[in-house]
């Protein structure tokens, strides 16, 4: 019972703050309210016993990505990006939005219809850091190493495309 109350509490906080992100006129408030959304999602993950994902959610999303958003807002200023009445979206975009919404609704309906595997709560030990670490470094070792190679490409790419000094090709 307390689990259910907590679930509705965090879920409603997540929904309300997410709505505030969309409807807020002030970009800084929108970003800060997105932080709240991320935190309440992390709480929901904890309730699913996915402790590791909850931690990563706070570290990566709330910690890194949203701080990056705030930095961009700080550097660019918020004057130019305030929504004005002239910047209304055209009819084509509205149609596109309706299309997306209907696709997602259909998808949700499909997911909720096939609940055969969703009834049980996941076991308590599945989402611990220890178990995930074990699984990454034994069962999914190859995948883990491949990800490190992909990150290496990212580093090479950034250095190469942003490095000005040797811009000697055509």
């Amino acid at each position, binding site marked *: 019972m307390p689990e259910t109350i907590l679930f509705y509490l965090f879920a409603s906080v997540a929904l309300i703050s997410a709505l505030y992100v969309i409807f807020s006129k002030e970009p800084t408030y929108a970003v800060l309210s997105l932080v709240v959304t991320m935190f309440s999602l992390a709480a929901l993950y904890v309730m699913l016993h996915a402790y590791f994902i909850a931690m990563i959610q706070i570290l990566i999303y709330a910690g890194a990505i949203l701080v990056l958003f705030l930095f961009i807002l700080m550097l660019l200023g918020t004057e130019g990006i305030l929504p004005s009445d002239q910047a209304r979206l055209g009819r084509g975009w509205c149609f596109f939005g309706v299309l997306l919404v209907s696709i997602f609704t259909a998808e949700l309906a*499909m997911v909720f219809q096939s609940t055969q595997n969703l009834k049980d709560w996941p076991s308590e030990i599945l989402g611990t850091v220890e178990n995930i670490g074990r699984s990454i470094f034994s069962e999914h070792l190859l995948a883990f190493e491949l990800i490190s190679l992909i990150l290496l490409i990212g580093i090479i790419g950034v250095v190469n495309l942003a490095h000005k000094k040797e811009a000697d090709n055509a």
Partner: protein
Amino acid sequence: MLSLISRSAETGLIIVVVALFAARLTLPRLKSGVVSKLVITVFALLFLLNMTLWGSKTLLLQDAFRLDHFALFFKGFFLLAGIFIFMIAGHFQDTLAKRIYEFYSLFTLATLGACFLVSANNFLVLFLSIELITFSLYVLTTYWRTQITSIEAGTKYLVVGAFSSAMMLFGISFIYGTTQTINFHDCRSAFTVLSAQPSFTLLHLGLILVLAGIGFKISAFPFQLWAPDVYQGAPTPVTAFLAVVSKSAGFAALMRLVLLATGGWNAVWILMLALIAAATLLYGNLGAIPQLGGNMKRFLAFSGIGHAGYLLMAMICQNAQGYQALIYYLVVYAIATLTIFLGIVLTDPSQSDMKHNMSDFQGLLARSPMLGFSFFVAILSLAGVPPMAGFFGKFLVIQAVIEKGMWLLALIGAVTIAISLYYYLNVIKLIYADQPNDTSSIKIGFGYQLTFICLNLSLIFLGVFQAPLLHLIAKTI
């Protein structure tokens, strides 16, 4: 197990990447031409090392890595293709100067991704190795960073590539959600249970999304729009990589998925794929005609989409005959395409990699008989004119489709071959009969001449004596 891993192509390729960085840091006086030759030699050695594994059939690294004839054949294929792509890149060694190290290491990493892809035995490794290829290509397509076309190509490839990866990952999440496993073998049993039921399940949705993700890589019909712009704007060696290695890796992944993870398709799937194949054939071959007189690389993008259509036709047969035809076609297509890209690069001695308009190739035979003849052989092979190898590839594909009883698809294939003859012969007329704008003769180095002779001879040899290659391919399936 350790001896298998140490001899596998992947280990060698990682060592090449490390060695390239070490060389850049410690040997500043090394000339870029020497680097280029060294990398080509190492790739040739890796090819031989890979062939010593021939015959091994095992699962490694917690069943994530599959080593068998199919994987070894394709690894050898990618390494050989890599050698020719490095030769194409070697033409730009002076322009690249110090940036050649990163250029080569990114190509090596992309080849590494392709090698992992054909050895993947679960969806996670499959996805990550496709990402390894595309991430390298995002950087490589933008490599001429002062040219606006290259930046445009890189941006377009990034947006489309990221979108297709997201779709694929989304699909994999559905497959994992319904089957509770990412392993190909375990998925297969779930698929056989579910494909007996007529209803549409989340598993089917997942499979459609994964197929769409691969469809981008092989530039099949609804996902082909990126190809012309990216082929045109990317540096020519990168275009060659996209057209040969990236495309064949996509088809290899598709074959692996069908053979290992799904165990075949039912009639609805075949109908859907047949429609995609027919649309790809028509789009590629009809779209190539307006490109005559335009940009050569853009023209090749359309012809490449057409070839993806023939390969899909072979894919649909779902029997040993179809897969044999597919692999044979891929090999022949790769040889002809690499010949053409090497020729394109050598026709422009300025190393700027900017022009490549059709008019630059006018009267090429008079300017350089070797280049003119190589284009002649390669284009005839792509068009499917006997006795070139391309004819036999198309013959095998159409034969496999007809024996499967899909007459309409075979008819569309035959009609598009006739259409393709029109535009391919137009290019040959351009090279042979038209007067050149610039009459200066083109000099080709001895190494490149030897390469052209090898490529041309292999196209003619494979067209006349198909049996050795077909025997080899029969072992891989």
